């Protein structure tokens, strides 16, 4: 019962702050926590990125290996995205295969990369119908202090943009940088009464009514959306979030991905 009581108290506190236009850590409603991004730390991966979004910490590793194409796309490479919510990262995570939260996270990250066309899958064909490059995007959550979606998506695209196709190792020519054609960036807001708060931390996530992730491309198109958590959202709020999401994504893209 005490957890329930505590949650109510915390919700009240955050709610009253919000009525005054404030957040517990002093940020503006549409302000992100400090972002840091380091790439190439994992020499054994073909691409890697360590993202910090405030204290949220995510490592993304990319491995590129030859394998078989899917039978219905014989001349296309394959992207496989996985997210591990290892119990090191939060008292709420348990060992075992990904649960629905981890699966949703991986699939939304995958959606951004796939739907934006960031990776030209046809360029990853080695021998049509037989051998293609498989790009494994492995998201490894290290510290969950909220907004895993944005941190993971940013890590994924940053790892891909700095990845090398290890062709030499498989006697398939010289190594070359993985060609990346677009730069999808995910931006997440939670809704809380009438307010919309970007880059929520764990507390804000836990008391929010609902959450919306918007993934935008370099040209300002939308290439992915996902509402998560039960709760209502109106069309107006969706449009409001999309507008701010595009702006924030643009800033992140320019500052961290140099696009």
């Amino acid at each position, binding site marked *: 019962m005490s957890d329930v009581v505590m949650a109510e108290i915390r919700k009240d506190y955050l709610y009253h702050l919000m009525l005054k236009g404030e957040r517990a850590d002093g940020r503006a409603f549409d302000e992100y926590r400090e972002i840091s991004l380091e790439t190439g730390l994992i020499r054994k991966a073909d691409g890697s990125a360590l993202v910090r979004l405030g204290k949220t910490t995510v490592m993304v590793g990319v491995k590129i290996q030859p394998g078989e194409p899917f039978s219905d796309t014989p001349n296309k490479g394959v992207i496989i995205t996985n997210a591990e919510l290892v119990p090191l990262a939060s008292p709420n995570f348990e060992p075992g295969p990904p649960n629905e939260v981890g699966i*949703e996270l991986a699939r939304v990250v995958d959606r951004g990369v796939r739907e934006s066309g960031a990776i030209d899958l046809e360029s990853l064909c080695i021998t049509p119908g037989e051998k293609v490059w498989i790009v494994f995007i492995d998201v490894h959550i290290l510290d969950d202090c909220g907004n895993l979606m944005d941190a993971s998506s940013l890590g994924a695209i940053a790892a891909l943009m700095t990845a090398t196709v290890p062709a030499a190792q498989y006697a398939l020519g010289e190594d070359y940088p993985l060609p990346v054609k677009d730069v999808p960036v995910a931006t997440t807001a939670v809704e809380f009464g009438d307010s919309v708060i970007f880059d929520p931390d764990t507390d804000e996530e836990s008391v929010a009514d609902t959450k919306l992730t918007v993934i935008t491309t370099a040209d300002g198109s939308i290439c992915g959306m996902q509402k998560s958590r039960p709760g209502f959202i109106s069309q107006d709020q969706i449009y409001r979030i999309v507008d701010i999401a595009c702006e924030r994504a643009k800033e992140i893209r320019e500052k961290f991905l140099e696009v």
Partner: protein
Amino acid sequence: MIGMDEKLSFFKDGLRLDGRLPDELRPIKVEVGVLARADGSCYMEMGDNKVIAAVYGPREVHPRHLQEVTRAIVRYRYNMASFSVEERKRPGPDRRSYEVSKVSREALEPVILTSYFPRSVVDVFVEVLQADAGTRTAGINAASVALADAGIPMRSLISSCAAGKVDGEIVLDPMKLEDNFGEADVPIAMTPGGEITLLQMDGRLSKEELQRALELAKAGCQQIYEIQRKVLVDRYSHMDDAGSCDEAVAEEEI
């Protein structure tokens, strides 16, 4: 969204390949109370999609540690029959069905008055017997009716459908062919009052196209709501043949 591999034209004389207008739903068929064992059930066809939903509960939670002291929990299991798709699907849940189950549960949970039934569970099971793009929305529609059929107290029904982009045009309720070769897909679910409870999107849309898609999908949901409401009214105005094992008594076609 695979992108168009060969040049297919998706419109002829302003009509889609199956003869629909861009803003037209596929034919819908609904039957309520089709299962004897379930507390509530609904069979629904939306075009070539055939789904069946069952509701059990409120009932005891197993395992116990999942119990919530102040409210009922809601579980939702979306499952595709092995024979429902072109290539046989291995039985059991895959990653896609876990995600669909999650967002579908979150689409229905906001209207269920869970605080009436602390420490219990409302189980919603959706079986897809045939799939043709739009199974998650068909499942939510059927589940919403099945919840009502089970007598679960709800704020309102939930109605669900998708809009898509095909050949540069925004269309309502894309079928499989349009979905495979289309440029975007936006499934939503909402209350009759227009509050959105499910929103996903993949593909590529401008803000204006997104707006058009949401408007179309919203109009679609409103038509579906009328069908859901009517089948339930019909059902409960013929309740002389009540009882836990009565089969399909109400059927509605569009």
